[in-house]
C-alpha cells in the first residue's frame, strides 16, 4: 500500500494490562481501505485483547488510535460503532431468543414517529441485507436459536455491515462452520474488500489467512513479532513466528 492511500485505522503504541499482566504491549498497526489484515498468535498471545481494545470492550491504557486520520477515544462499544468500526465476535453475540431483524438492530432500533420500534421498516431492511449475503435466507422471522451456523454467522455479519461500517473486525468467522458455509464467508470477505471495507481477521486457519489476507501481524506474549505482506512469507515462516517468535530472514516488515 502506498503512503498516499488514506489509512482507515492507525494504532500507535497500544498498551493494555490486567493487574500487572501485560496483555498488549506497544502494538502498532495500520489498516487501509479494501485491505484484510490477519492477526495471528497463540491463545493468550494478546490478539483477542487487542481487538477488544479496538471494539471498545476493553479500552486501552496507553497509546493512540486514529480512525480516518482522526484521533479517537474508544471507551465503549458505542464509541467504536460511532467511529464506523464494527466487531463480529467469535461467539457472534446474538440474542438467541429474538429474530434476525431484532438482532440486526439491537441497541439501534429504527423507531416510528411515536418512538415505538418500527418492526416493519427493520424487517424490510433486514430482508434486503440478508438476501444480499445469503440468497437462501428466508426464515428471518424465526428466532436465531433455530438457525444454522451459517445463517447465524450471516446475521452477525449483516449486523456489522448494516450501518455502513468501514472497518470490520472478524474473530474466527469460520471456526464453527462447515466447508460450504466457510466458502460463503470467504466470498463475502472478498466482496466486502472490493467495496473498500478494511478488515481485521483473527483466524487459526492458516489456509484462510493466506487465501484472504493482504498482510498479517503475528503476536506473542502481548508483543508484536512482526507485520508482513502475506505474499512475502511462507506458512512455515508464519508458524515459526507464532511458535518461537523467530522473524523470517529475508522478508521486509510493512506497516
Amino acid at each position, binding site marked *: 500500500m502506498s503512503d498516499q492511500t488514506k489509512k482507515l485505522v492507525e494504532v500507535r503504541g497500544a498498551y493494555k494490562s490486567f493487574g500487572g499482566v501485560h496483555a498488549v504491549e506497544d502494538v502498532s498497526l495500520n489498516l487501509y481501505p479494501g485491505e484484510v489484515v490477519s492477526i495471528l498468535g497463540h491463545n493468550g498471545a494478546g490478539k483477542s485483547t487487542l481487538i477488544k481494545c479496538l*471494539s471498545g*470492550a476493553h479500552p486501552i491504557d496507553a497509546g493512540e488510535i486514529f480512525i480516518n486520520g482522526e484521533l479517537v477515544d474508544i471507551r*465503549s*462499544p*458505542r464509541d467504536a*460503532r460511532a467511529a464506523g468500526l464494527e*466487531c463480529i*465476535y467469535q*461467539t*457472534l*453475540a*446474538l*440474542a*438467541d*431468543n*429474538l429474530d434476525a431483524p*431484532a438482532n440486526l438492530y*439491537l*441497541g*439501534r*432500533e429504527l*423507531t416510528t414517529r411515536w*418512538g*415505538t*420500534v418500527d418492526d*416493519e421498516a427493520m*424487517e*424490510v431492511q433486514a430482508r434486503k441485507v440478508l438476501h444480499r449475503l445469503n440468497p437462501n435466507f428466508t426464515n428471518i*422471522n424465526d428466532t436465531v436459536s433455530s438457525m444454522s451456523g451459517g445463517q447465524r454467522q450471516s446475521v452477525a455479519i449483516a449486523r456489522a455491515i448494516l450501518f455502513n461500517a468501514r472497518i470490520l473486525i472478524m474473530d474466527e468467522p469460520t471456526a464453527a462452520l462447515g466447508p460450504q458455509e466457510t466458502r460463503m464467508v470467504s466470498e463475502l470477505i472478498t466482496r466486502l474488500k472490493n467495496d473498500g471495507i478494511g478488515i481485521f481477521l483473527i483466524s487459526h486457519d492458516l489456509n484462510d489467512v493466506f487465501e484472504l489476507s493482504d498482510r498479517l501481524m503475528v503476536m506473542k506474549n502481548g508483543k508484536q513479532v512482526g507485520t508482513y505482506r502475506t505474499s512475502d512469507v511462507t506458512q512455515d515462516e508464519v508458524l515459526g513466528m507464532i511458535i518461537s517468535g523467530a522473524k523470517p530472514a529475508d522478508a521486509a516488515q510493512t506497516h
Partner: protein
Amino acid sequence: MSNSSGSGKAAGLVRASGIDPRMLAMIGALVAIWLVLNVLTGGIFLSPRNLYNLAVQSSVVGIMATGMVFIIVARHIDLSVGSVVGATGMLIAWLQVQIFPIDAAWGWQLSIVIGLLAGAAIGVWQGYWVAYQGIPAFIVTLGGLLLFRGVAFMITDGRTVAPMNESYQLLGGGIHGSLGETWSWIVGLIAVAAVTLMTVRSRRRKLAHKFPVKPLWMEFLLFALWVALIVSFVLVMNSYYKPRTEIPRGIPVPVLLLILVVIVMTGIARFTKFGRYVFAIGGNLEAAKLSGIDVARVTQGIFVVMGVLAALAAMITTARLNAGTNSMGTLAELNVIAAAVIGGTSLAGGVGSVPGAILGAVIMQSLDNGMVLLGVDSAMRQVIMGLVLIAAVWLDVLYNRSRSA
C-alpha cells in the same frame, strides 16, 4: 382415517394458526380444568356468579403476573411482591382513612397516586441493589419480603384501617364495582372493533411487503374465536345480577383495570425499546452489553414497573376488602410467579408473554376457587398449589430439554 394422519393434520393446523403450541396446550389445560371442576361442583363452577368472582380474583394476580413476566424474562425473580402489596396497601388505606380529611373529595385519588409512587420508589430501591450493586435479585427481594411486610405492620402498628371511601370501593369490583349492562356491551364492541382493525391492518401490511401471511380461512377462524370469546365474556358478566334485583352487574372494574394493564404491558413488550431490551438481556446478557444497551438501567426499570403494578394490585385489594390489613398479599408472590411460569415464561430467561401470564393467573385462580367450592381445607389447598407450581416448572424444564436435544 388413520390416527397418524389425524395428528399430522392437527400439527398442521397449529402451525397455520401461528400460535405457540405451548400456549395452545395451556388453553387446552384451562378448558379441561374448567369442565372437570364444573362437573365436580355440580355446575356451580361455571355459573355466572362464580365466573364473576373468578374474574375479580384473577385480576389481582394477573396484574402482578404481567410485571413478573418481565422480571423472569430478564433472568431475575421478585419474591417481595406480596409484601409490597401489604406495604403500599396499608399506606393507601392509612392515608385515606386516618390522614386525609374524611369529607375531602380528593382524598382517595391522592392516596392512590401516593401509593403508586411508593410502589415505584420500592422498585427503584430494589432495582438499585440488583442492577447497580450486583446483589442477586433472589436475595434483594427475599430481604424485601421481610422488610416490606414489616413496614406494612409499622404504618398503623398492626391495626386494620377501615372503612374506605365509597367511590374508592368501586375499584374493588364489589356490589356496585362493575360497569353495568350498557357499558359492558360498549367495552365489548370496542374490543371487537380493535380485534377487527388489528387483524385487517396486520394482514394488509404483511401483504404490502410480501411477508408470509396465514391462510385466509385461519385468519377468519381466529377472528371468529376472538369475537366469540369477547361476546360470551360480556354475556356471562351481564347474567350475574346485583343482590335481590334483576340489574346485570357487567364487567367488574378490576377486570377492566387488568385489561388496560395487559394492553399497556403487551405494548411495552412488543413496541418499545425497553421491552425489546428486557428480552435481549434475558436471551444473551453479553450480546446486550456489546450492543450498547444500558443493562443496569433497563434492569432497574423492570423492578420499577413491578413495584407500580404491585401497588395497583394493592389498590384493588384494599378497595375489595374495604379495609387495609397488614397481612394483605401474604403468599401472593407464589401465585404470581406460578401464573407467569404456567403461562409459558421460562425460568431460563428470554422467553415469556403477557397474555400467557394472564392465562396462567386464570388457571391458578380456577384451581384455588374450585377447591374452595369443593370444600377442600386451606392446608390441603396449599399442598396442591405447591405441587402445581413444581409441576409447572417441571414441564418448562422438560420442554426446554426436548427442544435442545
